[in-house]
């Protein structure tokens, strides 16, 4: 679990070509919850190529792109932390929430499903995480039936309009991390605190968003 699958996108494409030949028969009789469970299993295993088989055709490219960016951002965060620890002779943080984004999902199971229409079903997926959260986080996916097959449509990949801003932000966050890491290696910061202030300040400047009226 959590092995890096960077560079697997071409392989994923090959797998998709092969998989598409058999997928019609394989999915014709499956239920939305079964497809969601299979997709979740592949995602938890960090196997994007296998997971991509279960997503809708039109969102597949966005799905792979987002997963790839997420992997690169996670690696850049880890690398930056390691660079700070090494440069400023700090002990790596342990047990703090600073590691929260690196936490992992151990399992995702269908907690509820709602039929929106004969071809659209909403699925609430309950997540089990490495650091237990009470109540367990719930994310909502959609299963769409097209050509007799049920496929998963993630909210972030439902349309290019939905995926684009998230991809842009992930890319921007990635660029900021790489830039700060470069500054650390060039000795441009006097302390780890200075480096972190620069990192957070740059992100906040890039991601300044209006506050929506929404209860977390």
């Amino acid at each position, binding site marked *: 679990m959590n092995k890096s699958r960077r560079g697997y996108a071409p392989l994923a494409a090959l797998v998709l070509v092969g998989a598409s030949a058999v997928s019609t028969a394989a999915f014709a009789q499956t239920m939305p919850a079964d497809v969601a469970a299979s997709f979740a299993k592949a*995602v938890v295993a960090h196997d994007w190529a296998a*997971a991509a088989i279960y997503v809708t055709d039109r969102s597949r490219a966005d799905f792979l792109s*987002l*997963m790839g*960016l*997420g*992997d690169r*951002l*996670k690696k850049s*965060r880890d690398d930056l932390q390691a660079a700070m620890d090494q440069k400023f002779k700090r002990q790596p*943080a342990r047990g*703090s*929430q*600073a590691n*929260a*984004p690196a*936490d992992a*999902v151990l399992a*995702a199971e269908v907690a509820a499903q709602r039929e929106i229409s004969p071809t659209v079903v909403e699925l609430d*997926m309950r*997540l089990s*995480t490495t650091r237990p*959260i009470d109540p367990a*986080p719930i*994310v909502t996916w959609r299963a769409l039936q097209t050509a007799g097959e049920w496929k998963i449509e*993630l*909210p*972030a*990949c*439902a349309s290019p309009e*939905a995926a684009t*801003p*998230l991809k842009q*932000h*992930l890319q*921007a*966050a990635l660029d900021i991390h790489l830039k700060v890491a470069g500054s650390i290696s060039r000795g441009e910061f006097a302390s780890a*605190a200075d480096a*972190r*202030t620069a*990192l*957070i*300040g740059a*992100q*906040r400047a890039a*991601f300044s*968003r209006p*506050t*929506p*009226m*929404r*209860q*977390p």
Partner: protein
Amino acid sequence: MRPWPRLLQSLAWLAGGLLAALGPAAHTHADTVGVQKTIMPFVAQSTFIAASDFSFWSCFPATCDNVVFDDTGVGPRSAGEPALADGQIRVGFKHFYDSGTRPCNCWVYSAEAYRGTALFRTRDLPHHFKSATLVLTATTSNTSDPNAKTPFLAIFRQDFVPYPLAIGDVQFDPATGRTTANLQHLGLFAIAPVDTDLGPPFIPGKIVETGPFSFRLDVTALANGWLQDWPKRNLTPLHGFTLVGFDESLPNQSNNALQVTYAVTLEFDIDDPDF
């Protein structure tokens, strides 16, 4: 030489010595008429309350793009905040909320509220003064409200009784359950924690705004009271103020801020020389 003048001279020396030991002449210099005396806080401390939470899995399996938390786990609250220098306090609130990117919002919030306390030593006060002014000079400010005038809702008095530090042997008798301590006081004093039971707000005299978020507050009456308390200077050697900010509610979906860092001093206009 006759003994009488010599006795008077000796008595005068003795009186002078007693005054030096017990009275205001403990100061090493005399305050001068028509000048100002500025004293720094002996204690300047800022305490904060904070809350934070996040939902990093709202977008699962996609990665959230939120600003990562800082080492404190409190959230990205420290970005751009300089460390407090000697004599500085911070007061006010700062709220951060990021809903993440739609349609699957990974939200994160952090909220903090600072109180600033400045305490002055009684022994640093001049003995005769015409006026005492609490000077609050804003060194940095962070506000989301362009019309904000002050980051603090109220000012409260603080009077501190220190407790002496001691070392010694402690014996416990299990038969009687009695603990016997043989303490030796070190002549050092620890400062009691900031009093959280603030009581009624302190109402200063004249208030003059000297710049954005900067003020001069007339505290003559209160400082005179401290001086009247001079005989107890070793019991209550610290007096001062706690500034409480406008909002200590720690909301979970706000991006507002009204927080100021102050350099704090106490200024006296001297009206009479020391004896």
